[in-house]
């Protein structure tokens, strides 16, 4: 399973390991995105994070992002590993690696991947602060899915 290109794991994520999966003779460019736990968000101090996933579906959705990337950038190869469980400040939550023959495509495809993860992959983040904790993305109910599923394109920061 560790050899799969799209993984949900409770183990620490190795940048090298994810990157190695996309190295190939045809590619001259690899772009990585590494999401780490940030201490301050909008002035509020985070102590730690808890990530929960629906792992089997999340891996399918990551693979779907890989397919979408191949429709848009046929020469790109993508590997993504997302961690679950308790993470401390600066721990790695996600590594996305994309290799392409030319670098502009690697940047664009990589950025597309992280945008899509935030839209369609069933993973949830609970922030632990000094004065409480909260699941992110739900409690304000400021998002709704009238169609019962995510739109194809939707931008959230």
């Amino acid at each position, binding site marked *: 399973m560790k050899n799969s290109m799209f993984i949900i794991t409770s183990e620490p994520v190795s940048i090298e390991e994810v990157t190695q999966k996309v190295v190939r003779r045809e590619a001259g460019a690899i772009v990585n995105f590494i999401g780490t736990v940030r201490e301050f968000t909008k002035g509020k101090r985070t102590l730690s994070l808890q990530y*929960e996933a629906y792992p089997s579906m999340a891996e399918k959705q990551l693979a779907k992002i890989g397919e979408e990337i191949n429709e848009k950038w046929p020469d790109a190869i993508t590997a993504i590993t*997302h961690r679950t469980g308790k993470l401390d400040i600066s721990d790695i939550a996600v590594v996305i690696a994309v290799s392409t023959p030319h670098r502009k495509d690697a940047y664009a495809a990589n950025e597309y991947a992280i945008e899509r993860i935030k839209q369609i992959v*069933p993973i949830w983040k609970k922030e632990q602060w000094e004065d409480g904790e909260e699941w992110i993305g739900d409690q304000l109910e400021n998002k709704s899915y009238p169609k019962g599923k*995510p739109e194809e394109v939707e931008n959230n920061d």
Partner: protein
Amino acid sequence: MINIKVFAHLREKLGGEQLTVDHTEITVKELLQELAEKYSIKTDSIMVAINEEYADSEDLVQSGDTVALIPPVSGG
């Protein structure tokens, strides 16, 4: 019987990872209405997956299916 998986704040609110409901066939929309009433949850922002694929509100859930209630995701 339909198995229903719940996650994140919903799991905490409903006190478990899995519920079951007894239907031979029901639309996603009807199922959400039933769950909203039974468990006093808001379902406006809930996405639904049937057997690990996102579903539309008019899609049919059948006995034996696994449904997941998916609150707005926040991975990455």
